[in-house]
């Protein structure tokens, strides 16, 4: 039997939601019929609006999908202005203030406390400036990710940016691909560093060379190496069922990417499970069919040319989130192809106050081209900075806070939304990760040759913070401490991407949150004492069994204090003075 969600989608979905959304915005939140709220909130996701959690009725998270994390000159300013004007609500965050933007692990932007009545004005401003929330959530093509510095990166094999732009134009708003069984996450990477993180997406295009007759538009029938993409399908981290995307033995030249991507998206549309949303992601279809059957079905039913077999990839060069080697992230100053530089700045847990967003937009204008890009580690990158402007840019006061040379614990922090706004969450996340990072920076020393250490905190198993690919993975749980229920974290170790990706092993369960910094400190102490010369943390974890690792973790109370030990989900907003559900604000009045 199709689910309620499928029934709603078959009635109204995709582009047509917009008119109704605007009608509701016009007539006020209360104009949504009482018995249609679930249906409309589900549909609004397709237009990037996600109802915030219980206690925050009538307020929405708005996600702006920025393909490949690219914000063209002027667009960051628009985001800052929209945040400043519309993303203020009844809750004030003690660390980040009353208005901010979140940069996400899929190179998008999230604003909170958005009211329905403001949506038409926000959409108008976004669209005038080439931005959109279309398909940012919901069951369809999501924001396409990749190496954020595509087209500029000195280490690039092939420029993926035109490919991504083309896919985005074709599949955003395409009615044939608007209603899929579940979200469809695509990654296209052209660089050799693996920074598109294809392995954890539903569909991945990764750079590869292929000897093809005639070559790249060449003249003879000489065989020569063409540059294109290998294809993998069925990655994803959620629901305790992490999967790496599987190699389906296909190589495509850049001009065929839309055919193959569209073919696979149609295959998912037609064969994905619409009866059980928990089994709907394409990763489960790949489990069931195997990679060979995916390839055969694609060939027979969805493309009208002969697929090439996989080419020679560059996976052995992957470093991004690899847990060892150079360039695990894109922080710092790096060469661009054109002789200028891109500068990756650390945004702790991806959250930036609206004033800072506006100031950064100014700096990008002043020192670069005005363009800014977002990475999958929730950081920003200012591109096109000439050598001559570099020193002055790096001396800007804003960069003290958003550093190009952050401490490893600041640099390595990634955190999801958590109980502040998210329905699925078990624990508080972003502010907690900030507190952890600050404490670790003040109290813990890594071995001198280790300058990156990634700690990712997710509030539940949906894994929005990608915990399974960090050195230390933290995931929301509960436990009892002295009999009282408290927020807790499961601790996983040794995850990372790279040539041979590995998900973290969950070695220690249910550590009360106030003992987690002590646990990490003890772990790092054992690592420093027992590692082999030059050994990476990931390699260190790999040569120990779970029991040994559990012993290294060793939870302990320290002078770290956690003000959010209680059930933060039972509050209407964890940081409110009067935080109980009874004190929740009324749904925003229409204005």
């Amino acid at each position, binding site marked *: 039997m199709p689910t309620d969600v499928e029934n709603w989608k078959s009635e109204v979905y995709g582009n047509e939601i917009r008119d109704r959304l605007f009608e509701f915005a016009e007539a006020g939140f209360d104009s949504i019929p009482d*018995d249609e709220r*679930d249906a409309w909130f589900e549909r609004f996701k397709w237009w990037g609006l996600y109802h915030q*959690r219980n206690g925050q009725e009538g307020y929405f998270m708005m996600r702006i999908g920025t393909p490949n994390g690219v914000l063209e000159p002027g667009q960051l300013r628009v985001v800052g202005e929209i945040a400043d004007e519309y993303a203020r609500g009844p809750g004030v965050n003690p660390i980040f203030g009353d208005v901010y933007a979140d940069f996400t692990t899929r190179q998008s932007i999230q604003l909170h406390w958005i009211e329905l009545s403001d949506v038409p004005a926000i959409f108008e401003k976004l669209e005038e400036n080439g931005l959109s929330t279309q398909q940012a959530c919901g069951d369809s093509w999501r924001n396409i990710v990749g190496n954020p510095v595509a087209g500029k990166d000195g280490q690039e094999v092939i420029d993926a940016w035109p490919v991504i732009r083309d896919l985005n134009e074709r599949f955003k708003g395409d009615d044939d691909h608007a209603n899929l069984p579940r979200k469809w996450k695509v990654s296209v990477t052209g660089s050799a560093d693996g920074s598109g993180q294809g392995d954890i997406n539903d569909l991945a295009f990764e750079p590869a060379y292929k000897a093809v007759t005639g070559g790249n538009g060449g003249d003879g029938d000489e065989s020569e190496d063409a540059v294109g993409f290998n294809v993998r399908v069925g990655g994803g981290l959620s629901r305790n069922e992490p999967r790496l995307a599987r190699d389906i033995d296909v190589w495509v030249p850049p001009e065929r990417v839309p055919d193959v991507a569209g073919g696979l998206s149609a295959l998912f549309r037609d064969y994905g499970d619409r009866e059980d949303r928990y089994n709907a992601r394409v990763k489960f279809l790949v489990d069931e069919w195997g990679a060979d059957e995916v390839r055969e079905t694609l060939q027979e039913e969805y493309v009208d040319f002969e697929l090439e077999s996989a080419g020679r990839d560059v996976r052995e060069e992957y470093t991004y989130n690899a847990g060892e080697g150079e360039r695990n992230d894109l922080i710092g100053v790096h060469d661009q192809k054109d002789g200028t530089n891109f500068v990756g700045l650390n945004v702790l847990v991806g959250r930036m106050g609206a004033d800072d967003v506006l100031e950064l937009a100014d700096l990008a204008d002043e020192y670069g081209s005005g363009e800014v890009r977002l990475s999958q580690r929730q950081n920003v990158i200012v591109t096109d900075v000439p050598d001559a402007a570099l020193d002055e840019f790096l001396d800007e006061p804003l960069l003290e806070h958003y550093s190009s040379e952050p401490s490893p614990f600041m640099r390595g922090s990634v955190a999801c939304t958590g109980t502040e706004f998210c*329905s*699925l969450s078990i624990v508080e996340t972003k502010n907690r990760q900030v507190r952890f990072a600050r404490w670790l920076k003040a109290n813990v020393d890594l071995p001198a040759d280790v300058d990156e250490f990634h700690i990712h905190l997710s509030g539940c198993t949906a894994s929005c913070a990608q915990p399974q690919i960090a050195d230390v993975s933290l995931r929301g749980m509960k*436990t*009892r401490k002295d009999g009282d229920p408290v927020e*807790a974290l499961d601790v996983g170790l040794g995850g990372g991407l790279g040539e041979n990706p590995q998900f973290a092993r969950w070695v220690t369960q*249910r550590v009360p949150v106030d003992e987690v910094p002590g646990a990490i400190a003890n772990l790092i102490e054992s690592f420093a004492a027992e590692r082999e010369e030059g050994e990476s943390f990931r390699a260190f974890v790999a040569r120990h069994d779970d029991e040994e690792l559990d012993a290294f973790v060793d939870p302990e109370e320290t002078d770290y204090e956690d003000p959010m030990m209680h*059930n933060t989900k039972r509050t209407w907003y964890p940081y409110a003075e009067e935080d109980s559900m009874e004190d929740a604000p009324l749904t925003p009045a229409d204005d």
Partner: protein
Amino acid sequence: MTTRLRVLDDGAWISVNDDRKVRVSELWRLDAPDLCECALTDLVVENFQSVGADGSTVEVQVYGQCIACGEKGTTGWIPVGRVRGGEFAELDRSAVRRVRR
């Protein structure tokens, strides 16, 4: 009058008549010998799997973990509240809940 019962947002909550009524992240005391060997399961509710009604009683199946012993799994049908005159009343959260047999 029929009551509309749904699991929404990936199992984050139970909707009763288009209103969010029961949420994940709660701790429930359960008499659920099928799930774990503890005398009482101390279950952290992570995901609702399904919702139904037995007369006026609203029941759910949830995925979660017993924080006393670490056992994980999906429960049988557990009552969470009653619908009377179209209004949902949640059962006392601190009371022991019994899996229907």
